[in-house]
């Protein structure tokens, strides 16, 4: 029985990200002498949820095959935050409209990304990077550095907690479960996996490869837009550089979480483990009193180490 459990767990790539998370959390707690363990977890859940949302979008993109990656996530978050906070103008009645606009911005960016890839026949890295220049500029020109407060109801929702568990994290958990089902059980999810494993075979099997890719880039950008809206609610307003850290984070959580960078194999629970790990890592370094420079060096090195251990190995091309 126990042997069965162990061998089952060993087969799950996501287990490593949770083990790493637990190790980092323990190290922090031991250092503080057992103080604040609960608060640290609450904070980790509150912050990790944004990484989880964009990470899931990035995971679908990366799963569609080698070379597929969305570098326009930070710019999309900034644009969505800037546009929706200005639009909602601190009024609760306009939140629904704000959500629609955030998703709409995502759809536009996603379609634009896909068209660049398809029409110019350039690698997604370059297409999404070029698109992100335009999106970022639009955000700068539109936002003009103004910091508008989010509607109170949105701020309350994004910061609410039930017994120390952030409401947003619970919603995120439900959302993750849904996306896991989408990936494993729906026509679209199966198509994403099939395209990622072998694009030509998927095409021969009658899968609409191009529509799958279009939908995946739209999904990623829509989640980035939604995340931009929620993050500006959470942090009391949008800022132009609020998406910056999610460029590395969104890719890192996918790889650390056990999704194959070669595509065709996704890991949904791993996103959570990896997002919590990234946040707790910074917390641990802060608790240890590391200077800003040392913190940067260590987080860079640890991310590379974990990726070296977790990912890679197989031939990607």
């Amino acid at each position: 029985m126990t042997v069965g459990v162990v061998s089952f767990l060993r087969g799950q790539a996501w287990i490593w990200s949770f083990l790493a998370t637990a190790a980092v959390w323990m190290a922090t707690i031991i250092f503080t002498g057992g103080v604040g363990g609960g608060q640290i977890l609450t904070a980790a859940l509150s912050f990790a949820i944004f990484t989880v949302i964009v990470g899931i979008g990035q995971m679908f993109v990366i799963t569609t095959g080698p070379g597929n990656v969305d570098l326009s996530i930070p710019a999309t978050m900034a644009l969505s935050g800037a546009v929706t906070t200005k639009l909602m103008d601190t009024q609760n009645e306009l939140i629904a409209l704000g959500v629609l606009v955030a998703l709409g911005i995502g759809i536009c960016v996603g379609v634009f990304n896909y068209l660049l890839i398809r029409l110019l026949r350039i690698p997604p890295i370059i297409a999404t990077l070029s698109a992100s220049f335009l999106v970022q500029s639009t955000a700068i020109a539109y936002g003009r550095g103004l910091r508008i407060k989010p509607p109170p109801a949105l701020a309350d929702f994004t910061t609410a907690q039930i017994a120390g568990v952030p409401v947003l994290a619970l919603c995120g958990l439900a959302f993750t479960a849904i996306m896991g089902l989408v990936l494993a059980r729906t026509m679209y999810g199966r198509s994403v996996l099939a395209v990622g494993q072998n694009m030509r075979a998927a095409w021969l099997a009658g899968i609409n490869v191009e529509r799958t890719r279009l939908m995946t880039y739209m999904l990623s950008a829509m989640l980035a837009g939604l995340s931009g809206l929620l993050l500006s609610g959470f942090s009391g307003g949008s800022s132009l550089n609020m998406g910056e850290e999610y460029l590395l984070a969104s890719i890192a959580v996918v790889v650390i979480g056990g999704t194959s960078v070669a595509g065709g194999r996704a890991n949904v629970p791993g996103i959570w483990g990896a997002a919590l790990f990234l946040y707790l890592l910074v917390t641990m370094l802060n608790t240890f009193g590391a200077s800003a420079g040392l913190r940067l060096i260590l987080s860079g090195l640890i991310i590379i180490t974990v990726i070296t251990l977790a990912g890679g190995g197989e031939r990607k091309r």
Partner: protein
Amino acid sequence: MFHGHLNARMLRSALPALSLAVLLAAIFYTQPRAMSYFGLNLMLQYAVPIALATLAQMFVITVNDLDLSIGPFVGLVACIGATYLHDAPALGLFMLAGCIGLYALMGALIHLRNLPSIVVTLGMSFVWLGIAVLVLPTPGGKAPEYLKALMSLQVPLVPFPIVAAVVIALVVQAALMHSSYGVVLRGAGGNPKAVARAGWSMLRAKMIMFGLAGVFGVLSGLSLIGLTTSGDAHIADRYTLYSIAGAILGGAEFVGGRVSPVGAVLGALTLTLAGSFLIFLRVSPDWQIGAQGAILILVLALRALISRGEAR
């Protein structure tokens, strides 16, 4: 569009030079006073560090990888240059050599563990920035005199940045495009399996290309502080984007080891001048990044059109 006697392949390799010529013509049209020794010198001041960073990026692109850490790396070199290289030259040189070694090791890690280069280099960008902050916590320091003297060199007739760009482009062009090992290095991007089967070490090729990227990153950082005379950890944050954009404008393709050193330098010059042009046109600084993105997309669209003509 491209039927008749026009050779699509030639047209594509002429595209970087054509874009630069069009941009120059537009600049001279809107601001005739820029058409002088002094005007060009001023507009192209930062062309040398940007061209060197672009070449660094091009080496990485040659082996089908992308370097998202070159900006912070140039910043780190600037910090070392403005502190240790000025105060303790031997230690400074040793540190710079160490940086180049780390770059080569980064290439080895990416190859051996088959990791996505964007993740590894993004992670390393934190490491470079962290070291830079430790070396020089606040902007300042002093660039060595010889770097300042070199970068403010007055050459008769032709402005120094142009002379430097031509020399750099020709040297790299000769080494990478016209030497026998250069062919192997490009082949490592074009058809890794074939190169490996022919008995060449792919590991060595990757390490050499990343090492060269490190060398040119160091040169970029040193030439940069020769101009600014002091250092800052964030001085070159934008160079990551500049270098990628410059390499693309210069005709680099992201698979297959198809690159062009002369093109990359032309791309870097185009990018540097595009900034001045937008200022002449009174385009709001808000749109600077966006305009660069638009130029990129435009050039890529032109190239796609030409390739379509080539395929016919």
